[in-house]
């Protein structure tokens, strides 16, 4: 029985124009992660990727000089598959099908394909889109805004409470030199005065668009003990599909019971949290649907400063998240969740033992712990 750990993390700079290919970004991040772990590139025998990315594993394996690629694959939803990829990679190592699995991505999300544009993400009225796109539901944010409006109606969550998510994350970004908004503060009035994009989402509810790369290296926990970094051991990892869920529940209603059962801990045991914040209210919804707070209390929780590193009871998105650090669709938040276990975050939670990371609308999450 192999326990599995994340032993290497790597990322490029985050920018609006990387000036290089997505493959180059991915390779730069992978080499950084392998150097971080102290593992030679030729030892890699597993590669996993986001299906929405352009850089195939054969190209990566060829460049790295991988001799025998034993495990590869992608998870096909959208940006929200980071935890699912960790789940797959951990299962492969656990089963002995591969020894060193790298999860990677390189995206020119600002200078290249912009996910917020309907002509990029649209399906030209085909399939299920026949029933949504002609009415102007064209991008992921449209469906997510629809759910957000309904939850505001049912639970009384307000735009101002969305704003406290954005402000809290910006405070964290202001401590993080890697963050896109490192040197730009944000006030609640800035948020409330910002224009609507897809109402109820205001400008500062929306994630950044980012060029950059990131990578994670996973090995067995036994192997991890011989490597350079303190391992972040995977205590639990889950994924879930997203069909037929309506406009209230996130997929965390499925993943949360499995996650907590697998981890054998409760939400109140978690020290630090990362949540996929393509849009600010999804931090509130995740806090509620994973059971950190009851439904309807996520808004008041963030409004009272509960998610702030400085004084909050449960620091959330400590690197600045997708709103203020970078939007690598979960990758930068997985990296931050590892940093919290190592003790190297720029908004470090003292003595963090259990680090939680959701990678999108409740469709996947992991819990990391220090080596026992």
């Amino acid at each position: 029985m192999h326990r599995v750990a994340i032993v290497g993390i790597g990322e490029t700079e985050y920018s609006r124009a990387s000036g290089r290919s997505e493959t180059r970004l991915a390779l730069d991040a992978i080499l950084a992660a392998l150097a971080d772990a102290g593992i030679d590139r030729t030892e890699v025998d597993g590669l996993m990727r986001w299906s929405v990315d352009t850089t195939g594993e054969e190209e990566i394996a060829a460049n790295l000089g991988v001799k025998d690629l034993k495990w590869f694959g992608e998870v096909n939803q959208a940006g929200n598959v980071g935890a699912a990829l960790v789940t797959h990679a951990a299962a492969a190592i656990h089963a002995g099908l591969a020894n060193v699995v790298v999860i990677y991505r390189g995206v020119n999300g600002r200078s290249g394909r912009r996910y917020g544009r309907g002509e990029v993400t649209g399906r030209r009225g085909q399939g299920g889109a026949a029933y949504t796109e002609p009415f102007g539901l064209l991008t992921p944010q449209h469906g997510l805004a629809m759910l957000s409006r309904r939850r505001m109606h049912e639970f009384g969550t307000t735009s101002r409470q969305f704003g406290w998510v954005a402000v809290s994350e910006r405070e964290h970004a202001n401590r993080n030199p890697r963050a896109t908004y490192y040197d730009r503060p944000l006030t609640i009035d800035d948020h409330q005065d910002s224009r609507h994009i897809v109402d109820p989402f205001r400008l500062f509810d929306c994630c950044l668009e980012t060029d950059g790369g990131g990578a994670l290296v996973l090995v067995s926990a036994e192997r991890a003990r011989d490597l350079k970094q303190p391992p972040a051991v995977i205590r639990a990892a889950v994924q879930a599909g997203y069909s037929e869920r309506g406009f209230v529940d996130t997929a965390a209603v499925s993943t949360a019971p499995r996650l907590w059962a697998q981890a054998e801990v409760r939400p109140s045991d978690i020290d630090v949290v990362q949540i996929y914040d393509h849009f600010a209210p999804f931090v509130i919804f995740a806090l509620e649907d994973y059971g950190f707070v009851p439904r309807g209390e996520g808004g008041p929780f963030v409004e009272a400063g509960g998610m702030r590193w400085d004084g909050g009871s449960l620091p959330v998105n400590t690197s600045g998240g997708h709103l203020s650090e970078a939007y690598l669709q979960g990758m930068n938040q997985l990296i931050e969740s590892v940093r919290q276990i190592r003790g190297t975050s720029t908004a470090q939670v003292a003595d963090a033992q259990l680090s939680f990371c959701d990678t999108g609308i409740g469709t996947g999450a992991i819990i990391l712990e220090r080596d026992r």
Partner: protein
Amino acid sequence: MTSTPAESTRPDFPLPVPSEDGAPFWEHLRNGELRVHRCTSCGRLQHPPRLMCVQCGSTEREWALMSGRGTVYSFVITRQAVHPSFEGHIPYATVIVELEEGPRLASNLIDVPVDEVAIGMPVHLAPTAVSDEITLPLFRRA
């Protein structure tokens, strides 16, 4: 009054492409009827249409006629265009209508200013032809 995005005439407008299982939905609308998949085994109404009933697994369905009455279940207002076809229609509201029979579907409201759209607003069907082939299930304030 406000326009609806379907008035767009640009060639890149994402008109529905009827699928094999969904083609009757659009045929009925061309005749002014909103019909939704109903499982003949367990009676569940299902929209959008699927190959199997998600409740009982049956593949036997009929197209059940809806009254056309419903209420706004949720809505968003696109105030910054995210697709070139929709640039001339900003701001526009997209609603989820909950039909009185239960199913929910995406739509636009004809002649309702975006700032008046609200959850719970009663609406009724207004089939609107946008091409020879396609009639969209739009709604008006009831």
